[in-house]
């Protein structure tokens, strides 16, 4: 109860302060469950390729940034309602998403999507293929002959394959590769799908200034090769 009183008092104090500049802190929203793009490390902090890219972009654009995690399902609604300012969550640039939010310049090359399965001879055309809800892979599988099995988190899609619930999982190759390497039971199939147009930062459509600042920072990271170094370090597809 005492805590409650204290926090309400703190909220009231915070509410009565007025600041002129709202973007003095830019909040970066990520999923935190999609290595190597983003994940929580042993210290419970956001880590991975996007953590390093994001921190570097903020430094170059001279922004103070703060990391926030949000589940993938509601990552776009929470952006447009203003709970954070940028989505940095391995989100591929697609036309459908572009109707709702705006994207910066891409900071990865289009990463081919791969299949992970228990054996090499699964029937991808007529079998059950798992994918995370709301991803380009889920949309892709829905348009093939295979039965789509959706899960809220990427981790569950892999677990479904190992449990025999799905024949294969379709996801970004850079996500599946470390799993195939570490786990003797599962393997990547030779067949790959080229979907998506590279990963970009998502911002609100009304936030053009922020988008331009971030795009300029991405361009400068591309120009001096520092982006390629990070892409190679974390293994997220081809270099620029």
């Amino acid at each position, binding site marked *: 109860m005492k805590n409650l009183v204290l926090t309400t008092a703190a*909220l009231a104090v915070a509410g009565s302060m007025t600041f002129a500049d709202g973007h*003095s802190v830019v909040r970066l929203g990520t999923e935190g469950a999609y290595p190597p793009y983003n994940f*929580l490390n042993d*210290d*419970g902090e956001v880590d991975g390729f996007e953590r390093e890219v994001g921190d570097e972009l903020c430094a170059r654009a001279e922004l103070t940034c703060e990391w926030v995690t949000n589940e993938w399902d509601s990552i776009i609604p929470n952006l447009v309602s203003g709970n954070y300012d940028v989505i940095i969550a391995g989100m591929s640039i697609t036309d459908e998403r572009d109707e709702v939010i705006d994207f910066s310049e891409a900071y990865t090359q289009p990463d081919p999507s791969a299949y992970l399965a228990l054996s090499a001879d699964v029937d991808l055309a007529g079998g059950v293929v798992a994918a995370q809800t709301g991803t380009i892979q889920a949309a892709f599988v829905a348009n093939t002959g295979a039965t789509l099995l959706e899960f809220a988190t990427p981790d569950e899609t892999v677990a479904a394959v190992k449990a025999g619930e799905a024949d294969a999982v379709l996801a970004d190759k850079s996500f599946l590769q470390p799993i195939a390497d570490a*786990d003797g039971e599962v393997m990547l199939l030779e067949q790959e799908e080229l979907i998506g147009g590279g990963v970009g930062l998502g911002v609100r459509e009304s936030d053009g200034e922020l988008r331009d600042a971030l795009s300029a920072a991405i361009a400068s990271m591309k120009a001096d090769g520092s982006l390629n170094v990070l892409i190679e370090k974390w293994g997220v597809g081809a270099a620029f």
Partner: protein
Amino acid sequence: MFSFCTDPASLEGAKWLSCYLTTVKHMSMYYAVVTVLLLLAITAPTALAFGFVGASAARSQIAPLRWVGKTYIAVVRGIPDIAFFLFFVIALDQAFEYIRHRIKCPDWEEPVRQGNDFIVCTAAKLPLGNSPQWMHETYGFMLAVLTFAIVFGAFAANVLFGAMRAVPKGQLETAEAYGMSRGQTFWRVLVPQMWVYALPGLSNLWMVLIKATPLLFLLGVEDIVYWARELGGAKQPQFTEYPHPDWRMWYFAALLIFYLCFTKVSEVVLDRIMAKLTHGQATAAGEAQRKAAA
């Protein structure tokens, strides 16, 4: 945490486990247990208050008040929790910000809704965009408490409404005969006696509330189920010092035990409260108590 944890790869057995279970990430999970308990501790009385007001309104003599009470009970009880949690919280948050926007930024000319975007002036943001993360978390927590209280308040209102009607008519008529006003009858006779009829329903609600806490994650509050899923998922050696296969089964088993113990303790406590409330009441259980004592 421990001094021998610097190189986890070289450890085995209990030592490895003790290091693994005390990583900062695991601490977040233990902290989430406290969050859940705190949520329950704040939500339960708040929901009961909502329920009491709702039930009193629903049996009010004043028609508009009665309509408000009945509509609240009917609407909230009829909407699936998950829809309520997904839609209502964002709407509530935007409503707060809109009100602040109108007060703090009267000169603002652009529309608040631009396509899909909801934009208020920066001074109206709640919490302010540049406030620290703990403030955002506390705000999210408060929204969660409010949403839980509204949802469970409606169910509690229905339980209390029924309980108020279950108090024997004779009691109320006697109070009137003694010359008590409507308010006096309500507070001195009806309210003290209704709890014994309300408790079975309320204890059910409490149990459901305990189990509903995983809905917190929909509101952006990281609860124990989120951490169990996150910590239990398979971890590859590139991304952690403690690689392990899919251990979610063990984490969820631990959660199962936690919830089971928690509901068992609740049951014991509720049974005691029931025995206390029954004392001296004109119910079958009260009669049994009297006979046992005699």
